[in-house]
Every structure is written in C-alpha cells, then in structure tokens.
C-alpha cells in the first residue's frame, strides 16, 4: 500500500476519487445551492481526472502524429477524446444548475436547499 514511487496514474486516480468524495460531501452538507453546484463541479472534475488516469500509458505521449512521437508509446486517445466530451457536457449541466439557482432565488428569495422541501411523503 505504502509504496514510495507510486505510478503517476495511480496518484491521479486516487486524487480523482478523493475529489469525487469531497464533491459529494459538499453536495450533502452545504445548504446553499451555489455551494452544492460547486460540489457537483468538484465531483465532475474528479471523474475527469480518473478518466485521464485510466487512459494513461506508462511513459506515453500525446496521441498526435508528428515528428516527436516516433517510436514512442502513445497514451490511449479514447479517454482523452471522451473526457473532452464529458467536460463540455459537465459545463452544460452546470449552466442548467446555475439557471436553477437563479430561478430559485427569484422564486423563494433564498438559496437554501432546505427551502425546497414543500413536497413530502
């Protein structure tokens, strides 16, 4: 467990998981909707880091064919491509969440999630 030279990918991966957990914790604990949205962004970023880590090949370079890559191992292009997509989607979702925050503030004059509990049972 406590190796000294952890591979790069492992570090990124664990960091990603920690980010997800802290993001989730933020979503659970903070009453303020904006903070919850930040929590979501944290979680999202964590996932993106994990994606990158999963695609990393030891000692790999960027998957672009030019003079620099000759003979070198390339990192997996797929996670890179997917993370790109995922980031943009995360952005879109964040935008919708922020719109919600604005609208909720307008409607209730409050940004607390506790004020969004009209419906029960």
């Amino acid at each position: 467990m406590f190796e000294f030279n952890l591979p790069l990918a492992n570090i990124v991966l664990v960091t990603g998981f920690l980010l997800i957990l802290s993001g989730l914790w933020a979503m659970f604990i903070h009453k303020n909707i904006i903070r919850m949205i930040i929590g979501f962004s944290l979680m999202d970023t964590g996932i993106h880091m994990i994606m990158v880590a999963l695609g990393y090949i030891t000692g790999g370079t960027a998957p672009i064919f030019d003079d620099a890559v000759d003979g070198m191992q390339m990192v997996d292009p797929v996670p890179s491509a997917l993370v790109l997509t995922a980031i943009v989607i995360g952005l879109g979702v964040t935008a919708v969440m922020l719109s919600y925050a604005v609208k909720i503030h307008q409607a209730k004059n409050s940004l607390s999630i506790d004020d969004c509990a009209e419906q029960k049972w």
Partner: protein
Amino acid sequence: MVTELLSPLNIIIIALGAGFLLPLIHARSPRFAGQVMFASLLYFVIISAYHFYTLIGGAPAVEIITAGIQPPFAINLRFGLAEAFVLLAVNTAALFGARYMFDELREHASAMILFIVWIMGINGMVMTRDLFNLFIFVEITAVSSFVLVAMRANSIALSAGFKYVIAGTMASGFLLLGTMLLYYQTGTLNIDDLIIHQEMITGPFGTAALMLVLGAILVELKPFPANGWGLDVYQAAPAGIAALLSVGVSAAYLFALYKILPLLTSFLPVIAATGLLTFVASNFIGLRQSDPRRLLGYSSVGQLGLMVTALALLTKFSLTEYIPLVVGGLFISHFLAKAGLFWLAGIIKGSELGDWSQLRSKPVLIIAFLFLITALAGLPPFPTFWAKWQLVMSLMEYQQHGWVFFILLGSLLEVVYLFRWFGKAVSSQSDKALDISSSGNRQWLPVVLFVGLLLACGQVMASSFDLPVMALLPVYAGLLLMLIDGLGERLKQIASLLVIIAYSVYLIPSLDGLNWIFGLMLLPGSILILIASTYQQGTARPGFYPLFVMLVLSLGTLLAAETMLGFFLAWELMTVSSYLLVSLGKKATRPSLVYLVFSIAGAFLILFAFALIYAQTGSMQLSAIGQAGIVSNWPFILLLSGFFIKMGGLGVHVWLPDAYAECDDDFTAMMSSVVSKAGVFGLFVVGTQMTAQLNDMDTILTVVGWVGLIMALAGAIMAAMSEDIKHLLAYSSIGQLGYIVTTFAIANHTGWVAAMYLAVNHLLYKGLIFLAIAGVLYRVKTRYMYQMGGLIKNMPISFISVLIGIITISGVPPLLGFGGKWLLYNALLERGWYLQAGLAFFASAVAFLYLFKLIHTIFLGQRKSEHEHVKEAPLALLIPQITFMVLIMAFSMFPNILIQPLSDAVAPFMASTFTWEGYLLITENGYWNGFLVMNIVGVLFMAPAILLWLVSKKMKVQKVKQFNIVFAAERPFTPATTHYAYNFYAFYDKAIGFLTRPDATRFWNGVSEWGHTVGASLRRFYTGNGQTYAGLILFYIGVMYLAVRTL
C-alpha cells in the same frame, strides 16, 4: 429510397436539424415552428411504425453504423423489434403529448427545441449500442428533462426540479465513471463487444465498474428508497411532461438496463430484489396517499420496480423468450395507462383524490379513467393481466414461491389504492368544475385513444395464449352495450336480455355434467333477475346493463373454461364486473372496495394454486388439478380458500354484508343467488378433478366441514342480531353457503348431491326473497326493519314471496328446503360426522330466529302510519318472484326432477348410493317421498282450513282495524311503541353474546390499519429534503454494492 428516408437514424438527424433551426423559424413565424415540431414528431412515429411493421413481418434488425466504420471502432445503432416496439410507443406518446401541451410549448422556441431533443434523446438511448454514447443520450435526455420539469418556473416545480438535477447528475456521473472503468478493463465501449469480452471484467474492480453503471441506471428507474426526487418531480411537473417522464424516459432507462443485463449475471438477484422492494414499498405507501399526482408517482415507481424484477428474474432463469410477453405487457400497460392518467390529471383542478369526481361531467372520461385504473391494476382484459399471469407461471416453474408471493402482495396493494381512488372519484362531490372547453378535445382525445390502444394490446396479448374464441366475449358484449347506454332503460333491458338469452342458448347445450347444471342455474337465474331491473320507474341506471351482461357472460365463460387461464380470466372478469355493479350503489364506495380487495386476494390465492399445479404437472388444463394433488395438498387448500372468499366464508366474510347491503336492491339478489354460486362452482371444479385424492385428504376435509358449519351457525346468529334487512339476508347467505361448504367437504355421493341441491335451493329462495325485499325497500325507503311493520296489508304478494322463501330456507317440509336438510343430514351421518350433524341442527334452529324476525318485523305487527298508503311492489319485481315461486313449488312437489339430474351429474365422480322407488328416494340411512309428503301435507292443510271455514260460516267474523287489539283491551295510538321489533333477540345476545361479537371485522380492520401504518413508516424516507434524497441514492448504490460483493 424509401428505406433511406425511413432510416431510424433520421430520427436523430431530423430532431437535431429541426432543433437547431427552430429558433430561426420561431423568430419568423411561431405558427410554422409549431408545425415543424409536429411534423418531426409525426415523422418519428412514421419511422418507428414502418420498421415495427416490417420487423414484425420478419425483417432483420436495422443496423446503423456511423462514420462509415464498423463497430466496435465507431458507434453503431440498432433498431430491432424490441427497439421498434418501445420507440413506437414513446414516439406516439410524444406526438400526443406535444399536442396535449401545445399551448404551452409554442410560446417559446426553446420549449419546442427541448421537447423535440428530449424525445430524440430517448430514441438515442434506446437505439445506441455504445456505452459511452448511451451516456451522451442520457445527458441529452436528462438536461432537457431538468428544464422541462420546471418550465412553468413555479416554486414547487423548481424545488422538485433541483432535486431531480442533483439525482440526475449523480447518476450520470456514476454512469460515466463506470463506463470508463469498464473501458479500462476491456478496451471497448461497444455493448455487444463488452458482452463478448465479459470475462475480462473481473475482480472487485470489475464488480465496482458494473455496479456504478447498473446503479446509475437503476437510480434513474427510481428504486425505493432512493426515489424521493422522482416522486416530487411527478407531482410537480406539468402533467404533459410528467406523463412522458413516467412512460418515455423510464422506458429508455428500462431498455438500457435490458441492453446491459447480459453483463450483470451475478447481479440479477439483487436487481430483482430491489425492484420488488420498490414495487411492494411504493404500493404500501400508495395506501396513504391523498394527492392523485403523487399517487401516480408511486404507481409509476412501483410498476417500474415490477418490470425490473420481471426482467431480472426472467433473465436469471433463462426464460428470455417470455420477456416480450411479460415485460412488454407490463410496459405497454403502464405506458398507455400512466400517460393517460397523467394527462387526465392535467385537466383536473385540485390535489385531492376526490377532485377526480369532476370527470363525472363527461361520461367518456370517467369510463376512460376506469379503464386506465383497471389496466394498471392488472385486471383483464388489459396487458398487465396476461403479463402477470405468465410471470407467475414462469417463476413458479422454478419454484420461486417467495418472489411470486411478494409480486402478488404488491399487486393486491396496488388494487387497493387504485380503486380507492376510483371510488372517491365516483362518490365524492367536487365543487370545482371540469374545464376542458378551452383546449378543445386536444387534451382528452389522446386519453380515449390510449384506452382504445390498451384494449387492442390486451387483445393482441390474449391471442398469444391458447384461449377459446369466446374467452373475451364478456368484455366485448359489455363494450357493445355501453355504446347504447344512452338509450331508454326498457330498450337496454331488452337488448341485454336478448344477448343473455342468445348466449344461454349457445352455451348451455355445449356444457355437460355439473357444468351443465350450473349453466341451467346461473344463466336463467340471471335472466329472471334482469327482468326486475326496470322496477324503479324513471330512474336511469348508467352502466348497469353493460356490466350486468358482462357479469353474466363471464359466469358463462367460467363454466365453459377448460384451461386454468380461461378459468382465471373469467373469474377476474366476473370479479371486476360485479365490483363495478356493486359500486353503482349510492353509498357503496367503501363496501365495494372491500369486496374488490377480498375478491382479488382470493383470485390471487387461486392464481398461486394454479401456478403450483402448473409447476408440478406442466399442464395448463383444469384437469391438471387432479394430477397435482398427489404431490401436495397446498393447491387444494389455496383453491378452496380462494373460492371460500368469494362465497363469503367465515373470517373472510367481512366484505359481504356491506357489499350486499349497499348495492342496488335488485342486484343484491343477483349477488346472493347467482354470483355466490361461482364460488360453489369453483369448489366443484376442484372437487371433481380431485376425486381420486379426496380420500387421502381426510384432515383437510374435516376441517373444511367444521368451518362450513361454524359459518352456518355464525351466519344465522349474526343475521338474528341484524336490524338492517339487507344485512340480515346477507348474513343469512353466509350461513346457507356454510352448509354448501360442509356438504361439499363430505365428499360422498349424498354430500355432493346435497351441496348441489342446496345451491339450487339457495338460488331460488334468495332470488325470491331479495327481489321481494327490493320491492319493500323501493316502497318504504328504509332498510331498518323496526321502522317497518304491518306491510302484509299493503304488499300481500311480497308477503307470500317472503313466506315461501322463509319456509324454504328453514327446511320445514313440505317445501323444497326440507330436501336440502334431509340430504344434508343423510350425508353427514353417512360420512360419520355425528357431532357435526348436531351443530348443523343447532344452526338450522337458530335460522328460525332471523327468519321469523324477517317476516314479522316487516309484514306483521303494527303498520307505521307513514306506510299507510304504500303500494304493492312494481310488476317488474313481481314477475320474477312469481316465477321463482312456481319453480319452488314444482321442485317441492317433484323433488326427483331436481335430485335425479344432480345425482346423475355427481355419479361419474362419486358412485351413486341412491335408490328410487317411484317418488321414494332411499339412501343408506333413510328414505323420503317428497311427492307423498307434499300431498299428505296438502290434504292435511285442507282439513283444518275447511273446518275453520265451516265454523266461521255460521258466525259473524268481524274484521277489525289496525289498532284494535281486542284482547289486550287497548287501542294504542303510535305503532312505533306497539311494534315489537327492535333488538328482537336481546336475550340471545345476553345468553351467548360472545358468539355475536364482530371479531373478524375487528381483525381485518387491524390488518388494514397495519398496512396503512407500514405505508406511513415507509414514506418517512421522503422528507422533501434534496440532500437526504441524494444521500439515499449514494446509500442505495453502496448497500447494493456491499450486497453483490458479499454474495
């Protein structure tokens, strides 16, 4: 060219093309923009319909590759039969959904864009074969839902929407993470490729990856308890959106689950369990729900749970060939019904279940509502019925009793709350008016159309079972008569009579043996009662005739059934139609619900038993019952209990008195004299199939025998304590059916003949008495007997009817009833049930108490002044009564014309022990000459009569007025104080009061309360707090993961 224009890929292309352009178009001409949206949605429908059609015809699935590169290196889509089916449904709903909420959508280009892209997202989710692409479409669908839910931007919708956003983003985050983890292990994203390489998904890593993907999809399917957000959304979203969320989006996720299910072999039990937990829990909570929108939410969630369970279990047991039938059936029912109900919900103002009574101003809608509810509840002829039948049968083949039990439990709870809702809608008064004029027919026409589709789907599914052509005839006959329900009463009555008579002429000759005898009892009995139906002059009875015909015809199909499915189908149809007929009564809301719930519970017992039998024998024929009994007695006990409930057996009789009391008075006659015989018929179906095993079932039969007699005694005592005339007769029915149960359990020739004889007997006298009482109630307008009295003067014919009736019930010779008693004791003694015979005697003696009370308090004693001018019952009631009396007299005079055929019908199963010498019937233990007894008594009766006549001729017989009680030397002025009627047998209560306590009622009330308490505690999860909901989602996935990891 055609195929290219109709390529499923075009759904995505058109949606995006139109979507991207819509802002520009809308800026120029909002009208045109709306047309573009409709055109696109219509195009979706056309594409999916076209492919559905060709695929059904056997065409191969349409494979679509993108980027000109083969999968798994590029994304591919597939449009097979399953996809076509789901998408045809979704797109059709979307088209009507758009039409439904057109006014709202067209205001803003963005709304139209979101709607169209939303539907495209669903299509994409269904079609794609790539896991990451699935994530993309999930996000497309999710983001558009997030916005559409809150499109009205009211406070509640925003709250709900935000919770949805939190849940949705968490779920899709996990989906993404899981997808990538899977990619890490397998190096592919293509689902088919993943399935091929699933051995590469190993270790805790692989399990975790799969768990994340599965968890994400399951969370979107709103499992208990991680579904609070979903319920909020259903409740708060605009009705049109909620409808599509509930049916369309859920369908997409369900399909996604279906696609990845081959990867999840080790997860199947957990998936099934979570689905079932959701199904049962949401139905429990539904019991407590008073907001119809939220109730629909619970129902949606529950249905999804059931579908997930079915999917997982069928896959687990390699029964995938049934997935289309079971999951498809559950899906299409849920789909059409839920969409229709949500749309209805949008029309109705108010948030109480009772507010749905607004629908009554538009009969089409209340009927549609009823159909939708019925479809959801899994009653025939709707698809869920077939699906559940197949599911139960298939599971039982693998001995999955536990699963089946909980599925049926959940279904029962579902029936309770759905029909509670229906009852409230029918009975309550809403001060709000239904407003459907503003939007024209746009909002309600789709509902009606979906009802039609439901019926059609039900028919299609029925055709995949081996059923006789006539199996669904009751439904169609009912529907047909519903079309003329607006016409005059007399006309409808004649039409119904013609239908029933034609059906009888067709059916009865095709029956034989006991079935033939039941046919001769039930159908003509129904006809006689139907003759009475117009007795309330000038009163319209909407729905009565179609339902009545449906009831009678379903009784007929019950008799003709040869397979267990046919039997169960007819049984359920009978239950539904009789429930609805009961609910037509003025205050019948609660009693009819109780009736339905007990009936359905009984039906489920029967279903369970059938499934056990099927599992043991592999045969669907009713004759398989006999083969199964050898292995175990359970099918027998379950079947008996099921029929017992229908007959109002002791302990489960609590539905009966109120149901009888509160339904229309002439229909009570039908319930008591005809419908209760269905239970008797059920007993005989079991009995005749199991004759060979009955010898080995001594213990069970002995118990049943005792139970029947205790029922007879308890029924009689409770009847004697009743003040309400209909309660009295209802309890009397319980008591009389008790004898039938006992004689059935005796299981020898005499016993069965006795049971049949008693059944015929009961049919005749209960029909007679209830119709006579209907006349009385029609004239005096009260059901309390102590408020009547002295009516013999006003209603002499009704009095004679009741008199003949009670002599028949009591079993006093020379009338028909004695034959029943005589056979009863003969059978009991032959069987060696001596103490039982003593009890039977006690019970029949107690019967005298209520019989005298019945006739005395109504017809004799002092007449109330307000009844001075009461007239005889209407002719419509008297005609069948007289017919019944003639029949009773004929059978009394010539008992052999009744006993002989009964004996012949029983003889193939139980060797006859009867000897006939002319009219003299001789059994092992006794003899009886009905003809002679009748004549002797007749002659003997004449002797004193003539004597009295001779004596009175020479004297002046003076007729005195009502209050002239000569030998009391009193002239009372208020009949109320002089009529000895109230609490007639008070001393009986004092003497053996413990026998009259309503323990059963108390027990069932306790059960009902318990159910509500469970619902109340389960719904504590739903605090309304978005963060709690998010925590629950995490918790849910975590617990599931632990469960899978430890398994």
